[in-house]
């Protein structure tokens, strides 16, 4: 009996897994580690800070938008695109397990959003601080 129930369950899990699996699947800590190895290249690197990341996340940097304009000040909550109202799923992996599992997607959105918010790319230090903040945020 239990076998009969578990087989479709396994099939479903496998199928659902395939649907969300990015091209190169990683864990959020692997993504953070590769940002860290880039950050270490800068002289005087002293590690990442979730507190600094939160500060960076919630303040503006010369342009109209901050990260919170679309993502709210709670990374575990869903946000809304400031211009189009399109719902944006939570950034914190605690609330959205798909987040920070695809390094190419993380890099793509850092590039785009840093350009919008800062008018430049973010340094590995800034990226690592923000990632640490996102990882530290609990649901």
């Amino acid at each position, binding site marked *: 009996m239990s076998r009969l129930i578990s087989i479709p369950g396994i099939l479903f899990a496998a199928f659902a897994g395939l649907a969300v699996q990015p091209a190169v699947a990683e864990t959020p800590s692997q993504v953070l580690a590769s940002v860290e190895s880039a950050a270490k290249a800068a002289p005087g690197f002293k590690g990442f800070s979730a507190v600094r990341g939160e500060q960076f996340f919630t303040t503006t940097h010369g342009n109209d938008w901050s990260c919170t304009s679309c993502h709210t000040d709670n990374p575990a909550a869903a946000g809304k695109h400031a*211009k*189009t109202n*399109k719902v944006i799923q939570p950034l914190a992996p605690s609330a959205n397990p798909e987040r920070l599992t695809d390094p190419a997607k993380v890099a793509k959105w850092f*590039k785009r959003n840093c350009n*919008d918010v800062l008018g430049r790319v973010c340094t590995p230090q800034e990226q690592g601080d923000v990632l640490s903040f996102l990882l530290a945020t609990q649901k």
Partner: protein
Amino acid sequence: MPKCKHKSGGVLAVVAIVLGVAASAAQADDRHDRKYGGENRGKPVQPAQTNAKWRQECASCHIAYAPGLLPAESWRKVMAGLDKHFGSDATLTTQENKEITDFLVIHASNRWSAPTAPLTITGTAWFKRKHDDGEIAPAIWKNPLVKSPANCGACHPQAENGDFEEHDIRMPR
């Protein structure tokens, strides 16, 4: 009696005008390439087979606008300017950009004959005519649930699937 004659003559004239207008409207309908001064959306606006990359990338920030809503040249221009896409950086890899541009261009409006290529769907003649004051009260546009004329889904619940049928329209209150 002469009065009566005059009256029926007037009626006939009105009927003739109405028929004439109806006939010319029907003719215009047949010549879709001339409709809206040549700025007409395609039919269908959405192909039966869509592209996964197009949906995934374009629908990150807004609905994936159906390719038939704009002519091919508009899509080429939009896709060439993604670094400043309506004020946001929406850049893609070269390969992604090519795949999505190809999809948009192949399925762009097939009823567009004007030498124009607007950068926005709201800038097209067909859009303006379909959404002018006679069709939509100005107050609707000010509704926070609408927010922007780019927010098709506010009134067209099936916009995401390229369905803008009139009987499906639901104006938010």
